[in-house]
Structures are given as C-alpha cells and as structure tokens.
C-alpha cells in the first residue's frame, strides 16, 4: 500500500504509550483554516505555546503574519551589504593591480612573478580613480544581487523538489482559498496527542497527519 489514508480528526488517537516519545513516522500535523484572521489567531496561539518548528501556508501574503508567528527579522540584508562591500573591494583591487606595474604580487616567492601592466589611455594616470568607478559599481551590484538571490534560496531551503505537505489533497487549496498551519514532528515540544488536541482547540476546519 503506497498511499496512507488521510487521518480524520474524529479518529481515536493511537495508544498513549506511543505518545510519550516524539513520533518519527509522521512529518507533522496540519490544520486547515477558512480565513486569514483565523490563521492569524491560531499562529499567535502556536507561537505563545512555544513551538519552534512550524510554518503557515497561505494563498497570498498576509500582513502581520510574521509578527503573529514571532519570526525574527532576517539577517539577509546585512549579508548582502557585506557581499556588496566585497564586490567593491574586488573591483578596486582588480584595477589597482592590473593597472600598476609597481604592484608586484607574490614577489617574495622564487620563480613566480605576477605583475600588472600600465595602460595609458587618453593621457590618464594609471591609478585614475574616476575611471575605476564604473567597474567598482558594477561589481558591487553583481555581488550584492547574486548574493541576495543565492542566500535567499539557501535560507528558504530552495530549490526543493518535494515537500510532505503536497501529499495532502486539501493542501492544493493553499494556492486558492484555504490557510494552513503545520507543526512539524521534529519540534522538541511535539507530542502527537498533545499537539493534536492543541490544534483542535484552535477551531480548524480539519486536522490531518502528514506522512514523512
């Protein structure tokens, strides 16, 4: 049997002795809500209950949900700034080195000589800062933009070809008109029966267990 049936809320929970240890068999529990408001209230309750590994899925951006979930501000902007600075530095050093014959790289090492070549263009001095600015500017933008996209994907765990949520039939409506909240089984606080009872108290349309 490849397909695990969706567990309805009415089904009796498994015996208690299994419940004292976090379940390794399921990915988590998913609660379905009808409105963004209901999801928002539920998110605040889950946040206050102290769960760490959980997420919300909505068809559109819901303003204030970040706050309701207690998500910390991302450090991405700081990293992008640092990468931008790295690009600027690289642009400067690259041109400084390539335009200056006096700047001798690895000159202390025997048998290796790498040095720049002075280009004389329209009577400008070799170290002519204004002419360097376009290259410095472009490299700053390049590094900042690539790092912004790359780190964003990394932090979001993307690209990801499979997600346990997709096993749920109801979840298809996450891109249409339903709002979902998933508590993952790997959460240190996760005890299946308690989590199920807790989600039930949030008054969802349904609760289902997601197979890993």
């Amino acid at each position, binding site marked *: 049997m490849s397909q695990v049936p969706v567990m309805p809320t009415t089904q009796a929970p498994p015996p208690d002795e299994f419940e004292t240890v976090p379940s390794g068999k399921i990915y988590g529990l998913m609660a379905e809500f009808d409105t963004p408001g209901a999801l928002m209230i539920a998110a605040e309750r889950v946040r206050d209950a102290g769960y760490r590994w959980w997420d919300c899925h909505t068809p559109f*951006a819901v*303003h204030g949900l970040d706050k309701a979930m207690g998500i910390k501000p991302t450090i991405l*902007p700081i990293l992008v*700034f640092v990468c931008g600075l790295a690009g600027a530095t690289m642009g400067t050093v690259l041109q400084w080195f390539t335009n200056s014959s006096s700047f001798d790289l690895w000159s202390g090492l025997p048998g290796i000589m790498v040095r720049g070549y002075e280009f004389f263009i*329209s009577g*400008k001095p070799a170290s002519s800062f*204004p*002419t360097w*600015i*376009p290259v410095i500017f472009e490299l700053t933008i390049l590094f900042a933009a690539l790092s912004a996209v790359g780190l964003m994907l990394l932090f979001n765990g993307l690209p990801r070809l499979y997600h346990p949520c997709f096993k749920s039939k109801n979840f298809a409506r996450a891109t249409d008109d339903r709002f979902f909240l998933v508590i993952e089984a790997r959460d240190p606080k996760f005890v299946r029966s308690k989590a199920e009872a807790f989600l039930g108290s949030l008054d969802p349309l349904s609760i289902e267990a997601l197979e890993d």
Partner: protein
Amino acid sequence: MMANGATPESHRLGELGSKVFFIAGLIGLAGLLISFAIAALSEHGWETFGRSYLTAFMFVLSLSLGAFFFTALNHATRAGWVVVLRRFSEAVASNFVWLWILFIPLAACMYWTHMYHWTDAEALAHDELLAGKTPFLNKPFWLLLAAAFFGIWFLFSRFFYNNSVAQDTTGDVSLTHRMQRMAPLALIVYVFTQSYASMHWMMSLEPHWFSTMYPVYFFAGTCCAYFSLQIIIMYVLQRAGKLKDEITLEHYQDAGKLLFAFGIVFWAYIAFSQYMLIYYANIPEETGWYLIRQMGGWGRISLLLLVGHFVVPFLILLSKHPKRIKGVIAGIACWMLFMHYIDLYWLIMPRIPTEAMATAESYNQLAEMAAAGDIDVGYGWNLLDLTCLIGVVGIYLAGTAHRLKNCSLIPEQDPRLSESLVFENV
C-alpha cells in the same frame, strides 16, 4: 467616508496655516525688501543680486517642479499607497499659480544687467561661439520661453489641484479618470519644460559650456527637493496633531525610499555620469566648468556634495529601519534639503575665469591663483545669498500654507483612499 464638507479637525491646517502664512510671509517680504535695498545701494549690486536671487528662486522652483512631477507620476501610474500624501504634492505644485511673480526680478536682471554673459552685445561682437548661439540665447526668446513655461505649469498644476479638491466634496470618480488621462501629457510636457528652463536659466550662465546631462541632473535635484519637503511636511503636520492616524510608518518608509532612490542614488548616478564623460573626453571647452569647481573653496564644496549629498545619507538610508523612525528620516530630509541648496549654489555661483585659463601655464598655476584669490571664480559668501534665500523661501512658505489652508489635507473621497490608509510594505 466623510459627509460632504464635514472634514474632521485633523484634516484641516486651520490655525497653523494662518500662523505660517503671516509670519513666513512677513519675514519673506522683509528679506526681499532688504535684498532689493542692498542691490540698489551697492556697486554692480544687481548682478550680484541676480545670481543670489537665481539660486534662491531655483531652490523654491525645484520644490514645485518636483511636486508637479510627483503628482503627475502618481496619476499616470494610478498609485494607491500615496493617496494620503498626494494633496501635499498637489498644493506645493499649485504654487505655480503665483510663482511667476517671483520670477519677475530675475527677468529684469536678465534684461537690464549682464548677469547672463550672452546678453552682452560687446562680447557677442567678438565671440563667434556666442554669436552662433544667439538663436537660442537671446532676450526675447528667453522671455517668451519663460512665459510659456510658467503658463504651462500654471495650467497643469491648477488642473490637478482643482480637480482633486473638487472631488473632496463631490466624490466624483470621473475626476480621477480625467486626471489619469491628463497625467502622461503632463509628464511629457514636464520633461521638456524643466529641461529647457534649466538650460536657459542656469546652464546659460556659462554660455560656452554645455552638457546634455545637465537637465537630468537638475531633474534629480528637483526630486531630491520635493521628496525631502514631503517628509518634512508629513513630520511637521503630525507633530502639530494633524493626520495622526492617516499617515503611518509605512508611508514614511516609502517616502524615504523615494528620497533615497531619486534624491540620493539617482542624483549621484547622474552627477557621476556627467563628470565621468567630461573627465574622460578631456576637451578644454568642457573641462573648464569642472576645473574651477575643484579649485580653492569650490573644491571643498564639491567634496561636501560628494560626502553630504551621497555617501553619508546613502549609508544611513540603505537599511529600512532609519526610514521608519520619524525623527531620523525627518532629520535626514532637512539635511538633504540643505544639501540641495548647496548643490544649486554650486551650480550657479562659480564663474569660469576664461582669460586666466587661456594664459595660465599649468593646472597647478591656475589652482594657486584661484586659491590665492587672484582670479575671480565666484567663491565667497555674500549677504545677498542669505537675504534672497530668506525672502524667497519665506514667501514660498506663506504661499504653500495658504494653498494647503484652503483644502483638506488629504483627498477625502479619492477612490483609492482606503487602499492608501491600510497600505503596508511587505
């Protein structure tokens, strides 16, 4: 939505408007009268006055031009977030209905003094380059274009202001459609009028020099000016207890973004583009303009612009957090407005010492002469700079307060008002 005519107290400028109108108006009048007196009593007074007055006038003109552009832009793009701020730009732009009066002294200076070198018949006789430019640079055409520009700005800004204010009482959505249809035309007309105005009134001070980037640079300046003023208006009104709930931190952040993008980054981009091309081509007839701006006192002002108009505000406003602290963003807006004045001063005041440049043996010799004050590069603060600025800005403040006093501070019945009230940055 409010019932017709019954706007709440916090949507009205009221007492504050009258106070600003009288105090700023009186100070402005006094400033102007003192400026006229100084100019009349001193030798070559009117030529000195002309340049100082031009700086002050371009300063307030750029505020209204920026507001005009922003109003038309918001209608053209059907922007929703900005609706609670749109009345400010409409009112500031509609200063054009009387701003032409302040232009009259300038036109007089152009006509009767040699403030603009190309009006000097003697110079024209000897100077082939100048003579070649007479089809564009001549007194009647200058006056004609100025009249046309002020007429166009008058009609467009009044159109947007009146329709928007009319909508406050009628709530007629077709007014919004009318303004949206007119907006693209206003933008196209804006580009041409402000470009030629900046060429005729500012760039032609050095008639030998030319740069096609100059009008764009001035455009970046007008954006810097109005987006700074917009934040200051928001802050001052909220401090006075107006629009407390309507303007949120989200609006501050977006107003800050505009100042950052147009007034700081775009300005620097254009300033550098212009500098870079002239630096690289290294043609004497172009480089003189920059040469003189990196000598003596002007060198320090150029550096101040680089650091104060770009580097420091860029680093501060890069993050979203400073844009969401009202005191910080308002402080930066004040600083940028000051920098914009310095920028205009830097554009208008320096004079290219043509003779000394032709005879000097080296760059260093010229720089030494400039530093020692042996040649006139136009550097040196004048009392007229201050009195003209106080005079023009005072009148302008009074006029703006008067425009804002006669209407609600937000477009009460704009169809996108509710969108703007709940707007959030994601």
